[in-house]
């Protein structure tokens, strides 16, 4: 079928494809003056629905309407979401020196750099932060005992975000 005369059947087929696919959440196609825009919305119970937008409906009754603004998109994960954790005032907090993706282990599936209860030295690598394809090894900076890890593996952290909490270590022998 020729691409320049998209039929109602074609549109239905695209809607079906988006609906049946776990992978695609958005679709936009502009053919001449007609613009089709499909978005899958995250609903309260977590299941996803496909809702043809006003622009899609306009295909059936020209003239086309303007595409709606992106407001009800799938929630992208929020890197600035506060970490709901507390720690003692005397604890040592290792913070992200840069924005990026936090990794607890050197490789997927490998044991983490540090475990709860482990004594770390200032130059012990405690995690990796990947930013723009560059892997940055993050060191403890101080001596201490790992008390908690505040961030999930693979999540995005902002500069200054608390990553790992250390308790004061017993004096070295």
């Amino acid at each position: 079928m020729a691409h320049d005369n998209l039929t109602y059947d074609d549109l239905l087929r695209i809607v079906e494809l988006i609906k049946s696919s776990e992978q695609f959440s958005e679709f936009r196609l502009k053919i001449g003056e007609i613009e089709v825009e499909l978005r899958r919305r995250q609903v309260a119970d977590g299941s996803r629905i496909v809702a043809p937008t006003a622009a899609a409906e306009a295909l059936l009754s020209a003239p086309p309407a303007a595409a709606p603004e992106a407001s009800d998109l799938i929630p992208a994960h929020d890197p600035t979401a506060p970490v709901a954790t507390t720690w003692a005032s005397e604890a040592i907090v290792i913070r992200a020196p840069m924005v990026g993706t936090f990794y607890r282990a050197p490789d997927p599936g490998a044991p983490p750099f540090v475990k709860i209860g482990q004594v770390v030295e200032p130059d012990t690598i405690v995690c990796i932060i990947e930013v723009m394809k560059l892997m940055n090894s993050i060191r403890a900076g101080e001596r201490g005992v790992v008390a908690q890890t505040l961030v999930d593996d693979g999540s995005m952290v902002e500069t200054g975000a608390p990553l790992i909490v250390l308790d004061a270590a017993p004096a070295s022998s």
Partner: protein
Amino acid sequence: MTTARRPLRRILVANRGEIAVRIIRASRELGIEAIQAYSEADRDSLAVHLADGSICIGPPPSSQSYLKGDLMIDAARAAKADAIHPGYGFLSENSAFAQACEDANIAFIGPPARAIALMGDKTTARRMAAKAGVPITPGSLGTVSDAKTAREAAALIGYPVLLKATAGGGGRGMRVVRNGEELPARFADAAREAQGAFGDGGLYVEKFLARVRHVEIQVLCDGRTILHLGERDCSVQRRNQKLVEESPSPALDDAVRARMCDAAVRVCREVDYRSAGTMEFILDPASGAFYFMEMNTRVQVEHPVTEAVTGVDIVKAQIRVAQGELLPFTQDSVRLNGHAIECRINAEDPARDFTPSPGQVRGLRLPGGPGIRIDSHLFEGYRIPPYYDSLIAKLIAWGRDRDEAIARMRRALSEMRIEGVHTTLPFHTRLLDDARFRAGDIHTRFVEDELMEVA
């Protein structure tokens, strides 16, 4: 081998950033629609705004979006695209993906899967080059499975050695190793980086040569004719990442150029190459000796330099060849006219060891005027995401000779302003003012060992 003519109607752009914009521009000029595949982090990107359509393919990490071949093919089907342009990086040198496109009757805009498999794998490529009678750097014949095997190979070759990703490109998954003690740690680093960047952690070992230049030959093949478009000198690098490229090379005389171009064409013939590709060589400028390093079976970041001196639109040529067209010119008609230089503007802070600097572009002033071209996906207010590489703009200057190209580049750099993030603009200004660069007297370690030494 000639493919039947098959006009393309709609291309899925399976990449992001400036190269996605470049592909959309080429498609539009050819009257072909472009559908942009994008991750959630690139929803508000120039490519999405410019494309005829767009489809969200997943969350920000490229392992869950731009690297997922099955997703891209599904996206192409959903968008009724009859071709996929992979750009550079991501899926561009993945032969399984190229094969899956062929199997799905979607034209892969690049070489046949077989050629990618042969040349995309750096160890096989070295064998193919040797078979074509082209000199290669001393190194391991195949992949080294672990640090112990790498150490054995390195001992035979002699330190310093270079660990390189077999699936590599763009300097990712590459480490210089000075001795056996530091090899295991470097091996782990390189393997991890290669796994993350290419989904393949395989490494090989080759001799690390000092005070050499990086010179590459652009090739273009339509299935019948194999042409070269001259060389690019990419010796201005930092940690194996190219920063500046130029054509012609200030270090190549006509005799060496002819031998290098001939070698590139021979390797292409050996693997029945088709589409655009680049043969990378190490050049010892003192002796004129050169060694095949690797082939990139895709469009290069620095392709505009060649476009500027030859007048050939390489991305359009890729699309035309994918449509089964023959190249409309011969080797004799290819001339290198004048001189072109490209500066890669990255969101990095050269004053802080080139630390990546993602963030929002709060102000933007682009240069223009005679001889200036800019390939960029930036706009005012754009948020440069932290998930992908740091290239934000390519500034290309053309002049009748190298001096004029440098003068124009220097002038354009002074006009250009990017606010809100750190960029490599100050680095380029410093480089362009350096007497050694101006004299063309540099090597691949120049930036690290000499230019950045005296801060």
